[in-house]
């Protein structure tokens, strides 16, 4: 029977070529759509790597008019003490303005030996890890012990450590950043500080010491569960009293996260709507072509049944034929699709592509089975004489 089907397919090669092309294009479109969906889904399910609940952000500029580094440092130190002394406060961290879920970013190329990588740079203090509860994977977060060392202490995320050092030991190694050398003291788990749909990224945390206090642009305050709106206004008042020449603003990271997510959600929803239309389009297109092809074969179906094929065996034949054709087109499609992970196009993880390929293959097969089963069943359910008559 299979030989018979191959003969039939071969004899109709012109018509089948078009069908194969249609399925190929459908597959490639579905591959693109599923890559997108899988990518977003994988990002969404990636662990966040830090805690944002009960963390408040105070936007704050280092006081102007204070040109002396040491006096700025002293001022910041006393500010930190002031906040920390409040009973509702658990911990405080000073950081550059690119705190989690903020609109500001700071990225640049950093390198280790011959490898250069674009990374987000965060200037933060010793308490930052505890305020955001990063998961330390190896080594330690920088601390007062790193004060005055020749190379500024830095912590990187696991992804960047993998890229720079492979499976080797990153702790104690140096990284080049803007002409200076940084020493890696620790590696943390990957974080999603740009929102829930953020893809894998490189993060480099640099220790703030007396020499680079000017980088500070925000204060992160981890508050206790008892902290309420009344406390927030008290905090605001005390800060306003101390920081006289800068406007301050208190935000909750939880709110900033929602805003940030909504911002990335809009283009994503647009893309997914387009993807949805593409899926419908592909489904209808394939359905139409297969349906038309089978309805044109009413006479053949009638004849096969007249000479002894049961309705079931005719249905099976039509589905098998369509599956053979779709397998041919999927083989061609797979050849193109695997180039993406093999050549690392778009810098996505290989498994994103492979999952998308699997989804697209399953989708096309499912569609082909439905599209050939239904019209085939219909054609096979009428009496042979009627099918022959309708030819």
């Amino acid at each position, binding site marked *: *029977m299979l*030989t*018979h089907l191959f*003969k*039939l397919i071969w*004899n*109709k090669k012109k018509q089948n070529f078009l069908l194969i092309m249609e399925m190929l294009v459908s597959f490639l479109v579905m591959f693109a759509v599923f890559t997108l969906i899988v990518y977003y889904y994988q990002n969404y399910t990636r662990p966040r790597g830090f805690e944002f609940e009960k963390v408040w952000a105070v936007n704050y500029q280092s006081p102007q008019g204070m040109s002396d580094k040491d006096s700025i440092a002293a001022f910041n130190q006393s500010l930190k003490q002031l906040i920390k002394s409040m009973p509702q406060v658990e911990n405080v961290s000073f950081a550059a303005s690119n705190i989690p879920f903020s609109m500001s970013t700071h990225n640049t190329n950093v390198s280790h030996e011959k490898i250069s990588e674009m990374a987000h740079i965060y200037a933060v203090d010793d308490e930052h890890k505890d305020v955001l509860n990063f998961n330390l994977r190896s080594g330690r977060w920088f601390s007062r012990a790193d004060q005055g060392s020749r190379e500024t202490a830095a912590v990187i995320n696991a992804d960047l450590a993998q890229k720079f050092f492979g499976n080797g030991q990153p702790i104690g190694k140096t990284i080049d950043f803007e002409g200076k050398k940084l020493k890696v003291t620790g590696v943390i788990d990957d974080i999603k500080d740009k929102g829930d749909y953020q893809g894998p990224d490189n993060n480099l945390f640099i220790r703030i010491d007396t020499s680079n206090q000017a980088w500070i642009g925000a204060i992160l305050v981890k508050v206790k569960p008892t902290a309420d709106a009344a406390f927030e206004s008290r905090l605001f008042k005390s800060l306003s009293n101390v920081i006289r020449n800068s406007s301050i603003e208190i935000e909750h990271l939880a709110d900033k996260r929602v805003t940030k997510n909504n911002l990335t959600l809009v283009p994503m929803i647009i893309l997914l709507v387009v993807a949805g239309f593409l899926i419908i389009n592909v489904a209808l297109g394939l359905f139409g072509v297969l349906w038309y092809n089978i309805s044109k074969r009413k*006479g*053949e179906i*009638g*004849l*096969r*049944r*007249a*000479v*002894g*094929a*049961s*309705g*079931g*065996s005719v249905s099976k034949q039509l589905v098998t034929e369509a599956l053979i054709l779709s397998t041919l087109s999927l083989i061609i499609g797979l050849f193109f699709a695997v180039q993406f992970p093999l050549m690392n196009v778009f810098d996505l993880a290989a498994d994103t592509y492979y999952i998308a390929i699997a989804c697209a293959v399953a989708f096309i097969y499912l569609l082909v089975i439905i599209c050939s089963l239904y019209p085939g069943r219909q054609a096979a359910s009428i*009496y*042979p*004489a*009627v099918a*022959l008559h309708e*030819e």
Partner: protein
Amino acid sequence: MIRLQNIEKVYRTETVETLALNSISLDVPKGEFLSIMGPSGCGKSTLLNIMGLLDAPSKGGIQIDAQATGNLSDKQLAQFRNQKIGFIFQSYHLINDLKVLDNVELPLLYRSSTAKERKQLATEVLEKVGLSNRVKHFPTQLSGGQKQRVAIARAIVGRPEIILADEPTGNLDSAMGNEIMEILINLNRQEGTTIVMVTHDEQMARKTHRLVRLFDGSQVQ
């Protein structure tokens, strides 16, 4: 071999109801060569389709080989058609995307047989109908008479006990028609095949054992 009891067939379309067959009762004993005649549209093809289990009657019953067919499942009907009946259609009904040889092999595809057996049997019957030199052709590359002979080869390749032929010589000149008739007569004589043939040709009908005339869906003699 074939027994029709009070067969009635009504075709319904949106506008009209056609009574294509009106209470036909007919017995075709084993080994008989029966011909059916009648004006165009009188229901000959309809009758043949019902005999061949290609269509269901609106009323009445059909027995083939002493077996009632009314309650057979689709699968059983298919097997019945495959094993017992060879059909020669008025308009050939060849599959244009298959070569002559593959068209002829078709009935064998639906029973247990090897590719080699199929090829051998098909080649044999094609020789019988004088088409040995056309086995690799497609139906579209054949004349009407040649197509008719392919259709005959397909009908006889499975050695059915019954052949139902709907104007097998209708599209052929008299020489070719006689040749086809020879084939059928030989089959009937040598293999004892029961044949029911629809024809417009009195001369052809005279060569058969018995003639049934239809008029407006009813049997007139």
